């Protein structure tokens, strides 16, 4: 399958690539929010533990 064909998707480029685009955005947001939440939780708990130890 030629590179040209890959990008134009037989004329349906707008549909196929917007669908895949939304998918990547949704998947990426899931990863990003999960990892950011984990970091925030660990930071908050560390802060709370630190203040308790004082």
């Amino acid at each position, binding site marked *: 399958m030629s590179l040209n064909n890959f990008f134009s998707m037989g004329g349906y480029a707008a549909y*196929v690539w917007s669908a895949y685009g939304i998918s990547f955005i949704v998947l990426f947001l899931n990863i990003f929010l999960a990892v950011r*939440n984990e970091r925030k939780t660990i930071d908050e708990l560390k802060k709370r533990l630190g203040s308790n130890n004082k």
Partner: protein
Amino acid sequence: MYKWIHQFGSPKYFYDISLHLSKWVTIVCIVCFIGGLYGGLVLAPADYQQGDSFRIIYVHVPAAWMSLFIYVILATSGAISLIWHIKITDIIARVSAPIGASFTFLALSTGAIWGKPMWGTYWVWDARLTSELILLFLYLGYIALQSAFDDKRIAARAGAILALIGIINIPIIHYSVEWWSTLHQGPTITKLDKPSIHLTMLIPLILMVIAFKTFYIAIALIKTRSEILKYECNSSWVKKILGN
């Protein structure tokens, strides 16, 4: 066997094995994604009727299956939490809901985008699309209910009841294409029958389904670990982990 189940219920045990599990699950996920995308976008031949627009199937179908699968997990964890009061199932249910909602949204939007070239319209009020939309509302209602309570324990059990009531929607979505005459195409992959889809198109689909499943498990594990740390923040093993 009881011992094994009870071990799973202990947050510390779950935390330890989930670290091991995450590694393998992420590797499988990445491999399947690359394989599925390459197979689906490059290797699979263009469809006779739909041309290249059929390639949306490789995100639409896995997303739709995941939206149903995650809701079943939501309801099952809720039932287990109501009957046996296991903390881990509370956490798994709470954590899976936003992921499930995002997959439902993805299924609806990729389906609408696919509908335009295939059926000529973005949306039609047939049985499957409407019940999938109801599923999205159920997820959003579940998330809203969980965030309305301060006590997470009560929130989990209340959400379990809501999830169990909405479980009736899942068979409706699944069998809607058989029970009613709809615009949506019928099932292409049934367990016992030979699939009506060609192998070169089928294998990337299966790879993408595995990729989405392992993606959900990986994300759910990350979120579950954060919640376990929050729940057990007063215990010594958590303090040791955080102290490092």
